[in-house]
């Protein structure tokens, strides 16, 4: 028995001995994503996107001649399984990891990746706290965070509906729902101090029924209702609100609704503010005529039967960042395969482009990403709402300056700041 165990152990231990300096046979990348649980509405499309992108990448010769091999870890299987499997992959020789979707998992994995000295790209999670609280060497974020996402939403709201007086919020009761409201309300207070918050609701995550909240909101009649919810929660809330006429009396601000547009179909009426956690939209006004964009969208639709949503864009950015960093490091080394530290160094100031506009990695490892928002419209071109009056905000001015804390920073913004942020407007 013991001999058996020891033999098994020896076999399992073997891959660790592999040397990282040589050009590997393949570039192993581990990706954490939700394959189960409510957040699989994001995780599964992102996995599908990763497979499409990497298949094409490998067909074109991979990264520096090395094909990329993906393996996925389910974030829905719980924190123990996640950390165990993350480590198993790293110790099994993964060259880069991408984690995670959940902000909570990012908080867990970032310090772990730092200890394990493995490159980790936070490819989707929104919490602004990670780089504000700690310095990381091995951890990068290839997209924006909650602060620019919320700030852009406030700016858009002020541009299209400058005269509103009252606002209510219905957010999911977990870190994202609470944090996003904290940033949103601080920014709103700084930029338009006369707005009154008439109701704050935090129904539990995964709530199946918002009837009572909707009754109360109908009695209050706020001008604007904010909800940063997503997935099934957002769908339910929008459906129930639309059924009961709440969407005719209040303007909804729904910064994650881009990911629900197709599912909501004809339910989402015109005239509500829709965001996409970055410049992510399957009809991206700058990108929709580009060949690579069209090719990917067609491939994605063929594979999944659905239109691409923001996690797909986030995934494309993380993979683009990985490719760009390796190629930069290879170029710097005169064509030779780089050491891990050289790849890490290449991330400094790295610019790359996924399916959206270009993204740049800042000195604190935070990505600078543009933000797209628009107004819902049932144009008849698709069996669901699309966007009009689209604005794409420049990411640089929206992102908390290095070394500052987000809520404090947004609280000190002035109405002049709002006018200074660079924005491009598109009819649709």
């Amino acid at each position, binding site marked *: 028995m013991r001999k058996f165990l020891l033999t098994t152990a020896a076999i399992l231990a073997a891959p660790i001995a592999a040397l990282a300096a040589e050009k590997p046979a393949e570039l192993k990348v581990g990706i954490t994503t939700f394959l189960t649980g409510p957040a699989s509405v994001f995780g599964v499309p992102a996995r599908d996107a990763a497979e499409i992108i990497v298949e094409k990448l490998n067909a074109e010769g991979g990264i520096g001649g090395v094909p990329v091999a993906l393996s996925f870890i389910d974030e829905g299987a719980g924190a123990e399984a996640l*950390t165990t499997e993350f480590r198993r992959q790293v110790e099994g020789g993964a060259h880069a990891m991408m984690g995670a979707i959940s902000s909570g998992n990012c908080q867990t994995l970032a310090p772990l990746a730092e200890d394990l000295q493995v490159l980790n790209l936070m490819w989707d999670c929104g919490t602004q706290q990670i780089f504000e609280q700690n310095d990381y060497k091995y951890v990068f974020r290839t997209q924006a965070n909650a602060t620019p996402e919320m700030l852009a939403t406030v700016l858009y709201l002020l541009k299209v509906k400058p005269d509103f007086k009252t606002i209510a919020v219905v957010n999911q009761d977990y870190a994202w729902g609470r944090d996003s409201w904290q940033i949103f309300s601080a920014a709103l207070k700084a930029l338009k101090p006369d707005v009154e918050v008439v109701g704050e609701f935090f129904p539990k995550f995964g709530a199946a029924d918002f009837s009572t909240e909707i009754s109360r909101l109908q009695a209050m009649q706020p001008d604007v209702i904010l909800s940063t919810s997503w997935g099934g929660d957002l769908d339910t809330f929008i459906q129930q609100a639309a059924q009961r006429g709440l969407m005719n009396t209040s303007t909804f601000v729904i910064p994650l609704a881009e990911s629900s547009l197709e599912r909501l179909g004809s339910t989402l009426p015109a005239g509500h503010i829709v965001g996409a956690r970055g410049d992510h939209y399957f009809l991206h006004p700058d990108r929709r005529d580009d060949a690579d964009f069209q090719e990917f969208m067609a491939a994605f639709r063929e594979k999944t039967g659905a239109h691409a949503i923001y996690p797909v864009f986030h995934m494309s950015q993380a993979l683009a960042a990985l490719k760009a960093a390796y190629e930069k490091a290879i170029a710097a080394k005169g064509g030779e395969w780089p050491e891990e530290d050289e790849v890490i160094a290449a991330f400094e100031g790295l610019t790359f482009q996924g399916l959206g506009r270009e993204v740049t990695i800042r000195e604190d490892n935070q990505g600078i990403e543009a933000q797209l928002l628009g107004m819902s419209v049932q144009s008849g071109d698709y069996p669901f709402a699309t966007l009009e009056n689209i604005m794409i905000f420049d990411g640089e001015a929206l992102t908390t300056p290095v070394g500052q804390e987000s809520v404090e920073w947004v609280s000190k913004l002035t109405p002049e700041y709002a006018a200074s942020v660079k924005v491009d407007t598109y009819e649709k």
Partner: protein
Amino acid sequence: MTFRLAIPALLVLAVAAIPFAAPQLQLLMNLALAKGIAVVGVTVLLRAGQVSFGHALYFAIAAYAAAFLSASMPGADLVLVLVVAVAGAVLSGIIVGLFVVRYRGIFFGMLNLAFSMIFWSILEKFYHYTGGADGIRLPRPTVFGMALERGPFELIMFYLSVALVLLLGWFTMRWFASPAGQIFQTIKTNETRLQYLGVSPQRALLSGYILSAALCGTGGVIMGIVQGVVTPEFAWWIRSGEMVFIAVLGGAGSVAGAFVGAVIYETIRTYASAFAGDVWQMVLGGFLLVIILFAPKGVIGIYDAALARLTGKGRSE
């Protein structure tokens, strides 16, 4: 008889060799051991014929106590963290226990469930104190004043867990054999007799309940420290169900079975979610069904039967 002792001893040695022989199994094994300690807590109650569907409560209370302590006292020592966390679990075990020991059977189970779900709701709801669904980080405690890197710290945690498994396992078995433990187990078979003997079954159940809370707490705090983060999921009803599941898987009422069950469960769960991400729950559920239907005495039952056949054969030859 030699088999009976030799095989467990070999298993313990094999586990102790893991950090050197198969380091990538170390974390998995450590989590399994932590869970195993908690499952012993559930096993204790099973000996009295009671099933708690809410013992994740103590698992979570200890973990959160540790996290709050570390947050308010950065660099707190490991021993202090452990002691405070388990004390938290024991204290809440006494308070809740005073209420629930009056009940038996399904009511006992449901009441425990209610307490754990209330605690879970509070953890989720009072975001500004508890971190909500994302939980709070539990930074590495210092060990005798030294701030350790991840590697050595995890090694210490691993051997600490192995030591606690042996110590608490031994203690629990001794307790079962003690007069207090004997009285406690009589609740399952004949509670009325206890009353005739002038012994309070309530008090007997309470002592076992507190022991089980302490064990669950120990498991929870180790889990929290090793993970570096504690979340409300620690108190979620499925976690409680999982503990009962493991207890039955290992062999209801068996202390050794709790650990064997935890190791098997954790291994299946991890590998199923790694290699069959879409169906890991189905794999676990199917496995559970097979065990209950075909080997209701659990892994320990299979082991005992195999051993009996082996020694039986030895005798006939």
